[in-house]
């Protein structure tokens, strides 16, 4: 670490932290859009009929769309001057990453939403509440996936880390830097997962207690 420090840009830490906020912003946008689209699809799918079949097909397609390819598709296949009702359609780099994550988040939310609606209909509102930890898990997966933005020049944490790594003289220094990056992403992720597990355990206990109380 003492060897690494002289090569570190003095602004590295602040740039890296700013980059991480970009990762969280991307994940938040992707999840918000995914929630809107995913819940609509879940509602259509549970409703059955032609709309249900269409929703299931769309969810299947979205599950099969690789995020990285969708990101490049959004950046390159939409003409720069394209607009819809006067609003520009061509996304910025950051929006392209967020939008590329929407197929995953919407499909995930749709699956979790279908399960939640079925739990509700079965008379288990607590079971339906499992939707919340599932969505939280999706958020952390989205934060990790938003690192793909480095490939298209989005100034997120991985891009900052890789830029700094290019200036490191040895492989050992680069590996130490990468380890810092893994820890920086890992700590909030593992903390988040631990909270989800605790929430799920709590919900399960409450559900068990309710079942015991209602059982004659």
């Amino acid at each position, binding site marked *: 670490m003492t060897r690494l420090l002289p090569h570190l840009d003095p602004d590295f830490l602040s740039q890296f932290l700013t980059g991480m906020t970009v990762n969280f912003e991307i994940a938040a946008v992707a999840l918000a859009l995914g929630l809107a689209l995913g819940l609509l699809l879940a509602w259509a799918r549970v409703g059955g009929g032609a709309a249900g079949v269409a929703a299931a097909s769309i969810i299947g397609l979205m599950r099969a*769309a*690789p995020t990285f390819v969708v990101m490049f598709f959004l950046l390159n296949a939409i*003409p720069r001057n394209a607009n819809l009702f006067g609003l520009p359609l061509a996304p910025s780099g950051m929006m392209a990453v967020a939008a590329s994550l929407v197929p995953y988040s919407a499909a995930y939310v749709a699956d979790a939403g279908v399960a939640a609606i079925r739990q509700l209909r079965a008379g288990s509102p607590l079971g339906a509440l499992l939707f919340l930890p599932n969505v939280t898990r999706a958020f952390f997966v989205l934060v990790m996936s938003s690192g793909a933005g480095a*490939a298209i020049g989005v*100034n997120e944490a991985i*891009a900052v880390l890789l830029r700094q790594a290019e200036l490191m003289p040895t492989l050992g220094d680069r590996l130490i830097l990468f380890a810092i990056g*893994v820890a920086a992403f890992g700590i909030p992720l*593992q903390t988040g997962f631990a909270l989800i597990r605790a929430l799920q355990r709590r919900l399960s206990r409450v559900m068990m207690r309710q079942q015991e109380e209602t059982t004659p």
Partner: protein
Amino acid sequence: MSPRQIACALICLLAAALPARAQETPDAELRRVLDEARAACATTPAPDRLVRILCDGKIRIGVRDYYPLFATHENGTRQGFEVDVAHALSAKLGVEPDFTRVNAANRIVLVAEDRIDLTIATMGHNTQRDGQVRFIRPHYYQSETILVGPRALKVAGWADVRERTICATVGNGSNTDLVSHGARLMLFDEAGVLPEHLRSETCTLAAQDDSFFAAYFADPAFAAAYAPKFGFAQVPWGMAVARSGSDRLAHALDLISQIFHRDGVFLDLARRHKVVSAFLERQQGVWNRADCNTATGATNTACILPALDTELEATSFARPVAAFEKWVKGTLGVDLVLPMLKTAPAWSLFKTGVATSLLLIVGALSATLVFAMVLGAVQGSRSWVLHGAARALTVTLQSSPIVLTLVIASALSHALFPASAATAIGAAIVALGLTNGANAGQAIGEAMATLRAEPATRGLGEAALFSRALGRSGSQIVAFLVNAAKGTPTASFIGAPELLTALTDITSFSSGRITTYWLLLIFYILVVMAVVWFCDRLRLRLERSHAAA
């Protein structure tokens, strides 16, 4: 005198005249050409452009409005190297320049439509343009593509660009050089955004014409932070006139261009405008040579530079492909462009891309399955040491974004093996397999733990328990197998020549970007759907074996 004797006499006269003309100086030849044209002006108006220019006393010249150092137009004043070249050659012809604004899109059209006589507009001379305009030789400038990056970054040659991301512009001919040396391209529509992306650190390296960066390097702050790393893909720049009716004008301009090189006129103007002048210094030496400083020097291949050969070899099926594109356009009204099928380099990149993508998918699926079984068995073992080690590895892999895991795998593989496409593919397979295999392995380990707690499995051996755990965690294993297949395009980030890389490279030097990315998306969705189908079959088999057990 018989006709035969007359012909013989004429041939002898011509033979005597030719070497004499070759030995004549360009100055004398220019005087002769201009005198002839002026004489024609005094007698009858002719369609010849040189005659018309001399008769009118003005020459219509197309120049650019905003190309710093070369041609700018601000507050009604035109400035720059090319503007001064236009003034100098107008003076040499004895006429006034009449400027017209041109840009990259119309500088050839305006000459061909006789709306201007001459274009001096940062135009590279390549073999494709040779069929559209007549270029003046010798060329008045030569640019090259330079790689610009932070001063602290050590990049000295092609060996240092492999697997680096380089920002470039779509349609730049030099992109093929970058691609062939293993660089990844980040493409932009306009060169104007590149310096800004360098400043914001979106781009670590940017490739563009040295004439474009010249203005930025004139800014001390930019020059202090960035430096040209090396140059490649030299392109001679040419003034151009129309191909018809401009023979005498072209000849006169050829001679003026020779004289300007020989006498250092171009060189002085370049220095005045702080334009890179190394090429002009070399050219001054060439045009002072006895064999070049003649009336026919502009046709002497030992003195002039060839046009840049930009013609790409066509595939054997390029014509039917073009006919199909035309049919789609005519029938469906859809602009379908298939560049990957029309030129040999693009077709080669495309085939390699498809094969590599399929290899990556098969490799990633196999690696995921192998790592899942190994890590699952270890995590399900009763040894706390093994269990703990596998758990630590899983947590670490879960905590690392896939892009970072790929970069780490790539860095380690390069420490062990020489950099190559095969190394990148191998590193990607290991990274994708480890990441997804660790997660699937965790599911297997957890299934083992729950099975051990069940009374029904008491007395079962480890192998039988493991087999049941596989069945119980079947849906999780399948989910991570599909995830591994979906993750394969990220391998492009570390230089694996898969389809995303191949198509990005193809669109960097050809048209049809929109169609290309549509095809890419459809290809990957179909492949992932096929993997989902295959994995579902696998899951059913696992669940059936679990139910049977």
